[in-house]
């Protein structure tokens, strides 16, 4: 009761305290609004699960999505005899490889490029090896794989949503698509063009790295909040 009277009649307590309370509430609201507007942390959306894979690489060994767990992987889809638009898409892969081997700061994360051939009948491991050599692939960085028809249909056609079909001339029509998958096996970006900007791919890889680096402790909440507020890059 006494405190109540003091509260109402005191000369200095009410006004400053009221200001104080307003400041507290205001700052809390402002900080949330500011986070949503200025989006200090950018993340890539978690688009979906990358498909399960059990493919054969250019050495004839099995390469599965479990082998790739913990690696950030950029996928593309083609075949060794492809004339168009594959030289262009392979050029993109080569340019990304060059940047990754050169100035790009990987912050200790393992980044791989993976070319999946859609022509298993022709693209034996030996053919893939030559294809890799011709494409300027640097072995530990850039892998070439293929698999049986049904596995490719489910994984590439269904899982990665890439349209491909045999054409009349005995070749394969394939939509140019690049897919970026994070170390947890989640699709984080898709580039549905034959000539995506290299800078954009590298920026996206950096965003995935930064999120993985901050996936523990207090920083994780900030990153999950960024997902919640859809803080996606332009």
């Amino acid at each position: 009761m006494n405190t109540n009277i003091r509260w109402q009649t005191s000369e200095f307590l009410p006004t400053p305290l009221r200001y104080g309370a307003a400041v507290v509430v205001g700052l809390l609201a402002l900080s949330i609004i500011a986070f949503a507007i200025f989006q200090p942390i950018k993340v890539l959306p978690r688009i979906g699960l990358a498909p399960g894979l059990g493919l054969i690489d250019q050495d004839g060994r099995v390469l599965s999505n479990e082998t790739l767990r913990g690696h950030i992987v950029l996928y593309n889809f083609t075949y060794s005899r492809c004339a168009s638009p594959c030289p262009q898409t392979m050029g993109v892969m080569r340019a990304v490889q060059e940047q990754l081997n050169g100035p790009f700061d990987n912050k200790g994360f393992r980044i791989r490029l993976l070319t999946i051939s859609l022509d298993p009948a022709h693209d034996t491991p030996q053919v893939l090896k030559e294809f890799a050599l011709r494409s300027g692939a640097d072995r530990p960085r850039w892998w070439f794989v293929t698999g049986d028809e049904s596995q490719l249909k489910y994984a590439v056609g269904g899982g990665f949503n890439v349209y491909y079909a045999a054409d009349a001339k005995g070749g394969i029509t394939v939509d140019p698509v690049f897919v970026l998958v994070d170390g947890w096996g989640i699709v984080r970006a898709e580039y549905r063009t034959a000539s995506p900007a290299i800078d954009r791919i590298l920026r996206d890889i950096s965003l995935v790295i930064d999120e993985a680096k901050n996936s523990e402790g207090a920083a994780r909440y900030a990153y999950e909040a960024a997902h919640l507020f859809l803080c996606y890059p332009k």
Partner: protein
Amino acid sequence: MKRIFLFIISLAAGLGLTAALTFAATQWLRPPALHGLVMQPQQPAYNFTLMSHYGQTVSLSDFRGKWVMIYFGYIACPDVCPATLAELNKALLSLGKQSERVQVVMITVDPERDTKEQLAGFMPHFNKSFIGLTGTSEQIKEAATYYGIYFAKHQEDTALGYLVDHTATVMLIDPDGYLRVVYSFGTVAKDFADDLKYLMAR
């Protein structure tokens, strides 16, 4: 002068209180961090159609209205699968009555040996409500691929015959059929239960 001084003090106290409240909020009031990888934005999960151990054709869409936990395993699995199924059972037990809103399904990655009869004998060991699903190897391959599951036979001279190497994640699907959380192998019952309680309360 005195008023300005007091205002500055209260402002400082306000700022301090803000910091303390924010800290408290992140510590106690924050929504519990889910224990798996949260899909954001949410995506519809692949709608499989397989054979249940009751002998009925079952699709994911048949479970609308329930939280579905999907695991890929097989009966002859020596360690990983029984451990995961046991954790899921423990999680359901700790949910009590709420567990009626959760359906655990195991999709076999060994359809040659895991017939519906075999699964009917196996699944109730863990929990009477668990459902085992099987199908043709093409159906299984398709479902597994879409859920990010790799599996391959692994020849080994054991009393159980061959083994099957497989991805051991658990997928949580919401009552609308959207994939919400992916759990890695080793997630314990309490973590599953905490997440389910939190998600079901919303």
